[in-house]
């Protein structure tokens, strides 16, 4: 199994856990400017996304994950965590 979290997976989680629908191909670009906040994902929404990822991958995420400002920062951090744990 590929342990890396893709942009598509993040987009799906944003929809199910935070109720925010963004097309995966636009997610990184749109997320750069105003971060999760501008996309409509609030702090509890990001916390829910982190919790869901931890349950799916069976491994804790670093505390900084829920403080990431942009989707790109978030993917870089969680994927490096998953790589280190693999």
């Amino acid at each position, binding site marked *: 199994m590929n342990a890396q979290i893709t942009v598509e997976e993040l987009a799906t989680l944003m929809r199910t*856990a*935070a109720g925010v*629908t963004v097309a995966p191909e636009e997610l990184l670009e749109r997320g750069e400017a105003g971060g999760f906040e501008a996309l*409509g994902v609030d702090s*509890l*929404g990001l916390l*829910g996304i982190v*919790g869901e990822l931890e*349950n799916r991958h069976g491994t804790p995420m670093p505390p900084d994950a829920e403080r990431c400002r942009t989707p790109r920062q978030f993917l870089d951090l969680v994927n490096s965590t998953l790589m280190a744990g693999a």
Partner: protein
Amino acid sequence: MSEPKEARAAVTGIGVVAPNGTSTDTFWKATHEGVSVLDRISREGCADLPLKVAGEVRGFEPADTIDGRFLVQTDRYTHFALAAADLALEDARLGQADTDADPYAVGVVTAAGSGGGEFGQRELQQLWGKGSRFVGPYQSIAWFYAASTGQISIRRGFKGPCSVVASDEAGGLDALAHAARAVRRGTDVIVAGATEAPLAPYSMVCQLGYGELSLETDPERAYRPFTEGARGFVPAEGGAMLVVESERAARERGAEVRAYVAGHAATFTGASRWTESRAGLAEAVRRALDEAGCAPEEVDVVFADALGIPEADRAEALALADALGAHGTRVPVTAPKTGTGRGYCAAPVLDSAAAVLAMEHGLIPPTPNVQDVCHDLDLVTGRARPAELRTALVLSRGLMGSNSALVLRHGAAHAQQ
């Protein structure tokens, strides 16, 4: 130097999401036609519970009007509140641009009895079924009885005074009175009301402890207050939000004053102490009339609490006689909630909405499923009764002992006071 005259609190918008209609127009049509929508409960997971009959809101699709961001973090009771607030603001012709112009001039007041029970049940099942890591973070806010006030104000960007009234079913009236007080103190607009969603397994189990709950399985016989067949009340979901606005602000923007919130009072007489509620309700009526400067004879219609427990029904009929004198046995009384069920805090707000609409249409809606009244009351049954209505009295009691009375005056009839 004279004191500045206090702003009168006007009703300028009504938004209803009720078992008998998910818009104000459909609600009023079903209400004045005396349609009963009480039916067997169809919600998932409820079939094995002894409570069989309720007033369900069917055909309501929250996703049609509410953004996904708000849907994932809110319970059904807040979905009703967000939708009803939208309808009320639209009815008052207060668009987003209007309220954005001065967000501090607009606030929200709601009342809630049960909060977000269905959302809470789902997350607690995750907790006990899978573990704490599977409980979503929005559980922290969705169940809470303040959720609807918060979410309406966040979604609309309102920054004026916001509050939540937790005072039992009568809190629905207390919320409207609280809104009127905020308006008199200088806020232009308060979106005020109550919605409830108590028809999910966990919430229903909580209600089974109420001795006043009707477990009758025949929808036509389940909720018949003021009759020999009274055997308790039927619960309901849904509710209403009203736009309560300063008369000055309404007139400045050319909005119609539909009614005035003229007087209110609340008392407390103890949980399920229905005989004692007679004195408490009568005192609430006296004080509400006094605040409104309204003589008993001026009351043209009473929207009764109508609990459906013989002792409570008798106390309410006697309270009206105590507070209104001989007029108490002559004034037309109605309880349209026998056709929709009793939505806890939402019930007296729906009655208030119906009272404003009744005054506008000159029509007292009937009390569905009720015939052969066994108290000394002129209860309107069968079909709506035409009448010139200038003043309505709305009554509410809570199972935990709160009693409230609200006096509403017709807008056009009382414009020149």
